[in-house]
């Protein structure tokens, strides 16, 4: 060790106050408790959101059942179905013959 290093080593070095340990550990304890409270609050909100989503789904399904909505099927309008039926029946009754103006 050279003289400069000896002088540097001889400079007074402050020590932390004895209360610092307790102060820091108290702050650590509070921060840990805060961190544990945070997920509990978050899970409460998650539970409320899931409950609300469930209620909405049930309401939607019961409305569908009440209106005889056919789930998982393409929507079919009554008017359209009747039109198809009339056309099919008309096709059955049609007598196909050559038209006089057909020159083929």
């Amino acid at each position: 060790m050279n003289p400069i290093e000896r002088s540097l080593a001889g400079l007074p070095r402050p020590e932390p106050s004895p209360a610092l340990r307790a102060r820091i550990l108290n702050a650590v304890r509070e921060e840990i408790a805060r961190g544990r409270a945070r997920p509990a609050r978050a899970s409460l909100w998650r539970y409320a959101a899931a409950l609300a989503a469930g209620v909405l789904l049930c309401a939607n399904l019961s409305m569908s059942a009440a209106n005889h909505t056919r789930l998982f099927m393409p929507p079919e309008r009554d008017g359209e179905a009747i039109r198809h039926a009339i056309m099919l029946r008309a096709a059955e009754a049609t007598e196909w013959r050559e038209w006089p103006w057909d020159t083929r």
Partner: protein
Amino acid sequence: MTPGRDDALLAGLAAGDEGAFAALYDRFGARLFRVAHAFLGSREEAEDVVQDVFLDLVRSRASLARVRDLQAYVFASLRHAAARRGRRARPALADLDGIPSREETPAPDEERARLARAVSALPAAQREVLALHLDGEMTFAEIAATLGISINTAASRYRYAIEKLRAALKGGSP
């Protein structure tokens, strides 16, 4: 460094075990305070910065399992916390220029006062290595791991600092 000991301590810290934080303070608290004091030049600020380091550790404890060198991690956190506190307006954390060093340290005689002034006048990078070596009681390898530099660079910065201090004291001006 004892990896086994660090692993157990890191596991305790990651689990939020208060006893692990107490053990961490007993192991590093005084050295962290002295280095913080060397960086900031104020007892109150040094104590606040050490507390910041511990609170940062609590908040980021989930990622502590990935830490390989606890001492380097803790002192790097201190460096960031000190830069945050000392230079809130400046983004460059490594630039610690202007941070009062030992000037507030009462010097019992003229030579010590001159030495303290000369240390304060050193470039930040050299003063940082000096503080980690003298106040943090760290080897150059440990300083290198903390600062993310090579061991040779850490040793060079220390050597340049000592040479500058010698020249300043020989010349009679800091």
